């Protein structure tokens, strides 16, 4: 992103709130606050250090106000950009800019959702679109299914290849104690599950869980004095191509292409430099589209690329190492968890799922119906000099 300095800021604290099915009656602010406290503990900072506050949730219209009130702080810099699940990748870039300008020094980015507890309809009220709603698309699933249909038509991508994405995610999830799903999954298991919106069965679709968390961003200078090794922000990029699926210019090419290009350019890195790839897998087609658009394989070859366990734990590319939105957790706007996992991989905190010698991690957020795309490339101290 032009105007931001490579490595100028770092993510220094990360934490999930309670995940899965949280205690009855917990609010999104309870989860945001829990995540905030844990993320601050993770880096050794406290609430009084926080002078920048960012949040996004579908369950509060003025969420950053609610969070500031709840935390009892009055941070001069606020951000509530809400563009769906990629909001938090946008927040990282915005926090980085605000820190560079001296508008704040310690920014907390928080998220909370209780969609499993209160029900998806209540957690995320669907807007009426007079040009789409009459046809009753099951959103967001049907929008992504339309994209999958087009990818299958143009490139011969198969349902088995889509299922391969879900199986790889499940294998990673089985290595993550925090993951929602605890049982193995097979290609046949995906294909024979309940059909939702062709070509997707319920196993091609993300989970519906509660959850939240927070990350702490500060300047590179301050980051070095904190508890844990900083995850420096090496590159950021964003792109919006549409809001509604009927206005997406080409259903086989997403805004991840320009977003990724911008992030790689700022980071002075290329796909081959990335050790851990965290992609917003709301549906199995997402992983294929983003692997293509972010340059890990050629356009149209994503289906073959994800086959044969290539993105599974013992494969050649570590993708969605926490188990992803498909098998780890998906409270509705999953983008924050991509950042949390990327940072933990760079720190070497991931136990059985740890990627060996992880120096560069990419977090790619997706929002709406393939609508908003945002890439954040993070690196260890060793990656700062190029």
């Amino acid at each position: 992103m032009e105007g931001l300095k490579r490595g100028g800021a770092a993510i220094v604290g990360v934490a999930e709130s309670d995940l899965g099915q949280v205690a009855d009656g917990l609010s999104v602010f309870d989860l945001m606050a829990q995540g905030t406290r844990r993320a601050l503990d993770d880096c050794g900072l406290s609430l009084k250090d926080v002078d920048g506050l960012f949040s996004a949730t579908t369950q509060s219209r003025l969420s950053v106000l609610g969070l500031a009130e709840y935390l009892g702080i009055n941070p001069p810099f606020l951000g509530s950009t809400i563009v769906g699940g990629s909001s938090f990748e946008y927040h990282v870039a915005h926090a980085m800019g605000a820190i560079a300008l001296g508008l704040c020094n310690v920014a907390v980015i928080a998220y909370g959702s209780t969609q499993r507890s209160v029900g998806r309809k209540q957690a995320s009220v669907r807007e009426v679109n007079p040009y789409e709603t009459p046809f009753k698309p099951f959103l967001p699933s049907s929008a992504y299914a339309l994209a999958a249909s087009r990818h299958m038509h143009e490139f011969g991508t198969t349902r088995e290849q889509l299922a391969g994405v879900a199986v790889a995610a499940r294998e990673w999830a089985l290595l993550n104690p925090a993951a929602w799903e605890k049982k193995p999954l097979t290609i046949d298991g995906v294909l024979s599950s309940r059909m939702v919106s062709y070509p997707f069965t319920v196993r091609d679709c993300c989970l519906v869980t509660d959850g939240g968390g927070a990350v702490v961003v500060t300047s590179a200078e301050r980051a070095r004095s904190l508890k844990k090794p900083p995850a420096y922000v090496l590159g950021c990029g964003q792109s919006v191509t549409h809001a509604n699926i009927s206005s997406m210019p080409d259903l086989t090419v997403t805004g991840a292409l320009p977003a990724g290009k911008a992030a790689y350019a700022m980071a002075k890195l290329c796909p081959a430099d990335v050790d851990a790839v965290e992609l917003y897998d709301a549906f199995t087609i997402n992983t294929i589209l983003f692997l293509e658009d972010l340059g890990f394989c050629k356009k149209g070859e994503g289906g073959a690329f994800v086959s044969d366990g290539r993105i599974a734990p013992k494969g050649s590319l570590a993708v969605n190492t926490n188990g992803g939105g498909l098998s780890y957790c998906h409270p509705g706007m999953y983008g924050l968890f991509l950042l949390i996992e990327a940072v933990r991989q760079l720190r070497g905190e991931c136990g059985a799922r740890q990627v060996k010698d992880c120096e560069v991690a990419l977090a790619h957020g997706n929002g709406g119906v393939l609508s908003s795309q945002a890439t954040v490339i993070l690196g260890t101290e060793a990656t700062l000099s190029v």
Partner: protein
Amino acid sequence: MPSHQDAPLKTYLGHLARGELAYQFSPEAGRAVFYPRVLCPFTGSDRLEWRISKGAGTVYATTVVYPAEGAPFNVALIDCDEGFRLMSRVEDIAPEQVRIGQRVRFRVHQPGGEEPPCPVFVPVEAQ
């Protein structure tokens, strides 16, 4: 920019009620605009002309929705020959028989009651 007596949506629905699929054309962009709006998304111009589609199109993408209750149904994106795309469904064939690349023709669906009419499509060979 002039103020509008009629919302673009209202004009569009008025045409549909008369059995017409209306879209806008941007002379400055030299291309069709859909959904109807007050500003051309390609040029920013507020000069948009209403035109009536011939109603011929091609299936661009298709899915079958499996509701919790009731029969599965089709949802498709249709590329109309005039160069605009819209969400719709293909009727008169089984939802899973709808194919990308299939030629389709517009007809008006009148849901009745308070619901406004909407544009649906049928396979060309079925007419």
